[in-house]
């Protein structure tokens, strides 16, 4: 409670002192963790919860290495405050697979050579996932525009674009194949 505050509307413990706990769902697992008010979401996920795929590079939301999918939308975790993420659902690259099979996008990045050093790759793949969730069949321009906020110093970007296109193609051809099979049976 704040000193000198007696107003009725404020007398309900709405001011939260730091540190405190937040409850987030990280990669499908609900977790309750203690956070300090000045932690970014990146600090919480990477250092406290051990998801090392999330990286801090520029710290101002421009490079995309810290991309996570929060409540279904890609955000820069380096400029999100952890303490304000109560009840949010967060997906990182670790949550894309079950540990056995690769996610179709990961598979496509491997096959098309969509990375070299791999530093930007988790962010790239999460951003591509967010793109395909929004637009299942993106055009080349849509891919370029959506991925423009993720920087990569190795590939020259074409391999990344081709990896995404390939993943879309794979998904569509499977679907066509499936229909074809079903039609042929009847």
């Amino acid at each position: 409670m704040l000193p000198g505050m007696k107003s009725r509307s404020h007398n309900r413990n709405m001011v939260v002192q730091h540190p405190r706990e937040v409850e987030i769902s990280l990669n499908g697992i609900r977790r309750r963790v203690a956070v300090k008010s000045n932690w970014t979401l990146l600090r919480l996920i990477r250092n406290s919860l051990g998801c090392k795929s999330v990286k801090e590079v520029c710290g101002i939301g421009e490079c995309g290495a810290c991309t996570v999918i929060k409540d279904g939308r890609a955000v820069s975790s380096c400029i999100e405050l952890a303490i304000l993420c109560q009840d949010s659902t967060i997906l990182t690259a670790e949550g894309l697979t079950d540990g056995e099979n690769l996610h179709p996008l990961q598979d496509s990045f491997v096959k098309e050579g969509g990375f070299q050093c791999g530093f930007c790759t988790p962010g790239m793949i999460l951003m591509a996932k967010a793109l395909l969730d929004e637009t299942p069949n993106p055009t080349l321009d849509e891919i370029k525009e959506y991925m423009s906020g993720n920087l990569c110093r190795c590939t020259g970007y074409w391999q990344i674009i081709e990896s995404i296109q390939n993943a879309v193609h794979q998904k569509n051809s499977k679907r066509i194949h499936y229909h074809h099979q079903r039609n042929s049976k009847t």
Partner: protein
Amino acid sequence: MLADYPTRPASCNEEEAYMKPFNVFTPRSVSDASLFLEKNQKDARPIAGGTATVIMMKERILAPNYLIDLKKLKHLSYIKFNKVKGLRIGSLTTHRSIETSRAVAENYPALREAFASIGNVRIRNAGTIGGSLAYAEPQCNPPTILAALGAEVVLAGVKGIRRVDAHKFITGIFETKLKPNELITEVRIPRMPSGSSCKFLKFTTRSEEDKPSATIACYLQIDAKHVCSAARLVVGAVGPRIYRCKKSESILIGKRLTNRLLADASEVCTDKIEALDDIYGSPWYKLEISKVLMGRGLHAAWNEIKESQS
């Protein structure tokens, strides 16, 4: 200007190099938030998307004791379109929802374009229209386009609600007409009558996502007699705030437009602008770029109106 600020600590992973700890206040309504702001004027800072606030806190430009978490006020995130009243956007609407809104794309294509060219998708997913206005950085797209569209900003404070014209809202770098206890609740954009067109153009020197050296937005309205009945020309990013080009507007209004007239108007559009010297360009360069952009914008708007009227 920015060079005077303390630079970001080398490593952000070290505890002491992080932002100053703070408390969080979660308001239940706008009046709750403004009451709290009134009581803790110097210590409290509202936060919406956080794309600007968190960066400033990391750089220790801001070190508030209390953050007011506005994102929990979900009812302030909406886009309502009415053919008579125009567009109403709640202050906590993200840039991305404005960009992807059908009502915006169909009726205000320039508004969509301005919001689609902010930062990157992640920034647009987090950042809000109200936050961008309150941040009051002249390089942001929203103030420029909203001023050209003749928008009004609705402010709610302890004493009630008031409305301010978008082009008067920003008074200097990071300075606005907001009183310490006020919050932006809504942006109202009037309808676009037939025979009107608005264009937004920006020019960046280093990369597409970089802060621009110049942004312009121009609104033209031409009546059935082919006379220009209204014009709003705005130059952003060049100086410490956005500028309405009144002199250019007075050249255009009440006349039948010609190529010559548009050239004259764009030539004087940088009149009275104090351009800042920074890494995005020298004052001379920025002013020249604005004139060229304004010429292109005016021509594009004029051509669009001519096509729609023919």
